[in-house]
């Protein structure tokens, strides 16, 4: 335990990225993720890395594109409105099959919104980040330790599948401090024969581009990309189950909402209600299997979210609408209280929502 230090979630992400071999960070400040950039600004110059505060989010994401083309590990971070600005560049990264790590420490929206925690970019992260057919791998940490762990994992996945990984966190995850241990065995760098590293007159030029004007060829690229996505869906789903063995009611939540839900579940168990939690860690690919199993035995699924109901759509698909799926939520920067979740659980236990 003695090697554990207290770190903010944002700082844990930055340090884990450095440990994972990231030496290039580009960003533009925005609350509540500014500590990522501040940490990088302090550390990168000391280890021969690059920290650059770009003139805008759009510039930053295109700098990410540039560095990724050379095969180096690279990242950017922002919060909700800033991620919207990066959307175009993210689509270009997808079109060019470039790996990168993106961090979204979400705040309430839409628009400029507020600066308090939110999960209202679930749709954006998992379904509609920008134009074109593509996905990102989306990881949802629920502790400072996971902020670090999933950063390391996120770089590995990005390199392995040549695509962007997003850490979808929120203001509480970014701002809170918890003990964290940063003891990682870092896998050796993945070979990137496609990278533009200079031919030394020994090989053909590598070209990194997302432009493809022949529809037959562009279709082929899309089909190939989705073959890769299929493999990711089959092999990379991550989730946690908590007290689901004998559960008659299933709460589902990610990130901070899962932490709040656990409090409520512990209290409900004390009151004799058999309730458990499914916490997706990968939001894309969405882990369908535990929901499919739950749908066979629980009488209701309660989706706890810091938005107007976004993940609930994936939950309904995964449970194939075999059981009622209800929403327990707050929005705009508010967080559901354990009492609110407990009330929803009690209501479900009485069968009141069927």
């Amino acid at each position, binding site marked *: 335990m003695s090697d554990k230090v207290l770190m903010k979630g944002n700082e844990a992400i930055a340090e884990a990225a450095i440990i994972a071999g990231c030496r290039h960070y580009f960003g533009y400040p925005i609350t509540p993720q500014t500590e990522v950039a501040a940490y990088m600004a302090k550390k990168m110059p000391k280890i021969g890395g690059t920290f650059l505060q770009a003139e805008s989010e759009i510039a930053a994401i295109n700098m990410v594109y540039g560095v990724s083309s050379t095969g180096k590990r690279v990242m950017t971070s922002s919060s909700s409105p800033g991620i919207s600005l990066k959307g175009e560049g993210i689509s270009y990264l997808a079109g060019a099959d470039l790996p990168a790590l993106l961090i979204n420490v979400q705040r309430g929206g839409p628009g400029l919104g507020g600066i308090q925690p939110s999960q209202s970019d679930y749709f954006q992260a998992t379904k509609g980040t920008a134009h074109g057919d593509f996905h990102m791998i989306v990881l949802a940490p629920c502790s400072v330790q996971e902020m670090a762990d999933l950063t390391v994992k996120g770089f590995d996945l990005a390199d392995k599948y040549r695509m962007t990984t997003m850490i979808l966190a929120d203001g509480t995850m970014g701002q*809170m401090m*918890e003990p964290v241990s940063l003891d990682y065995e870092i896998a050796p760098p993945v070979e990137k024969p496609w990278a533009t590293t200079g031919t030394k007159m020994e090989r053909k030029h590598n070209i990194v581009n997302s432009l493809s004007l022949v529809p037959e060829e562009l279709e082929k690229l899309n089909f190939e990309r989705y073959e890769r996505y299929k493999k990711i869906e089959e092999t990379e789903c991550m989730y946690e189950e908590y007290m689901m063995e004998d559960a008659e009611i299933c709460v589902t939540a990610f990130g901070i909402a899962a932490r709040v839900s656990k409090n409520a579940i512990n209290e409900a168990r004390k009151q004799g209600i058999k309730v458990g939690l499914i916490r997706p860690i990968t939001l894309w690919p969405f882990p369908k299997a535990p929901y499919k199993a739950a749908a066979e035995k629980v009488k209701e699924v309660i989706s706890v979210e810091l938005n107007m109901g976004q993940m609930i759509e994936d939950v309904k698909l995964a449970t194939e609408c075999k059981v009622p799926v209800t929403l327990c939520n707050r929005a705009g920067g508010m967080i559901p209280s354990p009492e609110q979740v407990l009330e929803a659980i009690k209501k479900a236990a009485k069968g009141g929502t069927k």
Partner: protein
Amino acid sequence: MNTTSMLIAGFGGQGILFTGKFLAYKGLVEDKEVSWLPSYGPEMRGGTASCSVITSDTPVGSPIVSSPDILIAMNLPSLDKYEDSVVPGGKIFVDSTLIDRKVKRTDVDVYYIPATQLASDNDMPTLANMIIAGKVLAVTDGFSDESVNAALKKVISAKRADMLETNLRAMTIGAEN
């Protein structure tokens, strides 16, 4: 299972977040599970600041403290805002130099410490927060130089090592008050 939820609130600049960080580190050096969550609104020096700290023998669930076992109120708006949220049987620590009213609740233990006055009397005007922290430890965990020192070393950077002694002295003043 033993979990303590603390809420520390006051003006920006009073060392609210630092106090929370110290209490969290004290939990950590005692091998407890801990969490620390600041309010991060557009607060700055002179505005209001608060922070939630939880120490527990089991993994911490939600890091948000809405019903504290311990409230440290370092200004009147904080006492007004959070007095009612303290759990029955909880403890409220009041900086009585800055808060001239009494706590209305009768179902909690209340400790009035003239922390700001004590800090200024002892030539440590910025350490009212640690004087109160000393009192909190004396009343709750028991005040031991060893774990306090270990935690202080974690929150005070090596460059400011000269502050260790002063902080410890502030806490001792609080503990003995």
